[in-house]
């Protein structure tokens, strides 16, 4: 069998990711001070999710992995988290509606 040599990522890509993350961090902090109404939270979480995604894809190597299970596990765990959050919050948001 062929040796499964891992994908060696260019150092410049890592630096690029790092730069994006740093910029995004300061961006979140800055955007929070701009009045966007209810969208402040949305924007903050959107940026956080983008940051998390590139960390997962590049730094954690999910983009390059041969491992077929990584993605299902990740998606599964996030899905499970959403089950917990959405179904519990559904109770809270409909509690006084009746």
């Amino acid at each position: 069998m062929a040796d499964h040599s891992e994908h060696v990522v260019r150092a410049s890509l890592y630096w690029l990711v790092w730069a994006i993350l740093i910029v995004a961090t300061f961006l979140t902090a800055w955007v929070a001070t701009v009045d966007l109404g209810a969208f402040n939270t949305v924007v903050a979480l959107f940026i956080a999710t983008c940051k998390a995604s590139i960390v997962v894809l590049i730094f954690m190597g999910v983009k390059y992995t041969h491992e077929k299970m990584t993605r299902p596990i990740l998606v599964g765990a996030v899905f499970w988290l959403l089950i917990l959050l959405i179904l519990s919050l559904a109770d809270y948001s409909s509690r006084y509606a009746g």
Partner: protein
Amino acid sequence: MATAAVTTERKNYLNAEYGIRSWLLTTDHKRIALLYLLSITLFFFIGGFFALLIRLELLTPAGDLLTADMYNKAFTMHGQIMVFFFLIPSIPAVLGNFLIPMMIGAKDLAFPRINLLSWYIYVAAGVLYIYCLATGGVDTGWTFYTPYSSMFSNTHVVEAGLAIFIVGFSSILTGLNFVVTVHRMRAPGLTWSRLPLFVWSHYATSIIMLLGTPVIAITLVLVVLERTLNLGIFDPARGGDPVLFQHLFWFYSHPAVYIMILPSMAVMSEIIPCFSRKRVFGYTFVAMSSIAIAAIGFIVWAHHMFVAGISLYSALVFSCLSFLVAVPSAIKVFNWTATMYKGSVSFSTPMLYAMGFIGLFTIGGLTGLFLATLGVDVHVHDTYFVIAHFHYVMVGGAVMGYLGGMHFWWPKISGRMYPEGWGRLAAVVVFIGFNLTFFPQFIVGYLGMPRRYWQYPPEYQVYNVLSTAGASILAVGYLLPMVYLLWSLRYGKIAPDNPWQATGLEWRTASPPPTFNFDETPEVTWEAYEYDKMPLPEEVTLER
């Protein structure tokens, strides 16, 4: 007639090494399974002792044997020990641990040292729990409902909470080990569609352990912090919401029921085909129903909270979802029954347990529908009806499965046969004792007797007397196997490698197996359960 020739003693996992160290530092999954067997048996008897106290107290309507506080502690510790220290680890940590590597043709689990670590974590938690018990115990009910547990109880809630937090990690690590082992360690040729259903079920169980357990762990930590540091997250007096605790608690504790029952279903899926000499009916459906139970089990938790003050709409949604989980459970029952159709059924001990399991699990599952039905649940919630229901699932289901599995694989584990006649007798005694104990509780529950009552109105007495009588029979049923299995270790017939002529890979190695399970890594070229290609077992199972 025992035909197994007495050969010169082969090297096996039991006699490979001697001495305490060789056990306490072992990384052999089979030895770790036996360590678990010893420790969970200990806890089973401690938990059983509390059950005995409860049943004796309830013999009369007045609270006369125990004080109210002692009674409250007795049912709390009965529940916590049985759930967290017996049922959850029982089949996975003993039979799963012992068998999964062998069933998939591996030398060991993927992480043997983590496997040993998880046993030590279990022991640490067990010691802490026993410390809690010895210094006065805990009285919150196994559910730890706030604000009673966080602000009002004067008992050792912190120790109990931490013990259960710790034992959770044992469960997580076991699940982790199983999942990775199933993915990575299968023998050549052993595809997913050839996996024994035992492995499928344990895979599903492991998913629940991995994704559910951390939630209860953190929830109990928050309760402990609330008691020690006054955090107030679940305390209404400080702005918190006690119902939030219930959401987080049941998010794990409902799926935890499936942690207890899925492994038992795993055992059934091995025993029934073997003693019917047939392929399992609808392999794919049985396998997939395990995964479905694990997944759907996570979206039904608030059916424990229909009268707890959740919103009307939330209750409607959760009720509807709760019925869904009955479908894969029903699929399993139907498929097992269909497996016996046109088979060649023998009444060996494991098969008796299996038939008992199907019957009791059917009753347990169907009464679950009563609890999922909103209007009915309002009446029977927190009554003995619920107690009867979950004992039918957890004792009638999980414990029957555990005992059936112990008998089925006893020759493999110990290298000895158990006495068949005694085995059948014990199975029948357990079945009768169980029904006598718990069936009356359905009626007394519908009459309205609330759970966790130390004294009760006299009109409920007759059912409680029946229940206590049944419990004493059940106790005999549990002690019998204890005695004759121990007896067989010394006096039992030497077991052949495959006494049942079963198809699993674990039967293709020696009994007891060598340290690394197989002398040569097997290559699998057959489907699971090809009983048409197996000869009938020797007289061992046919003897009278």
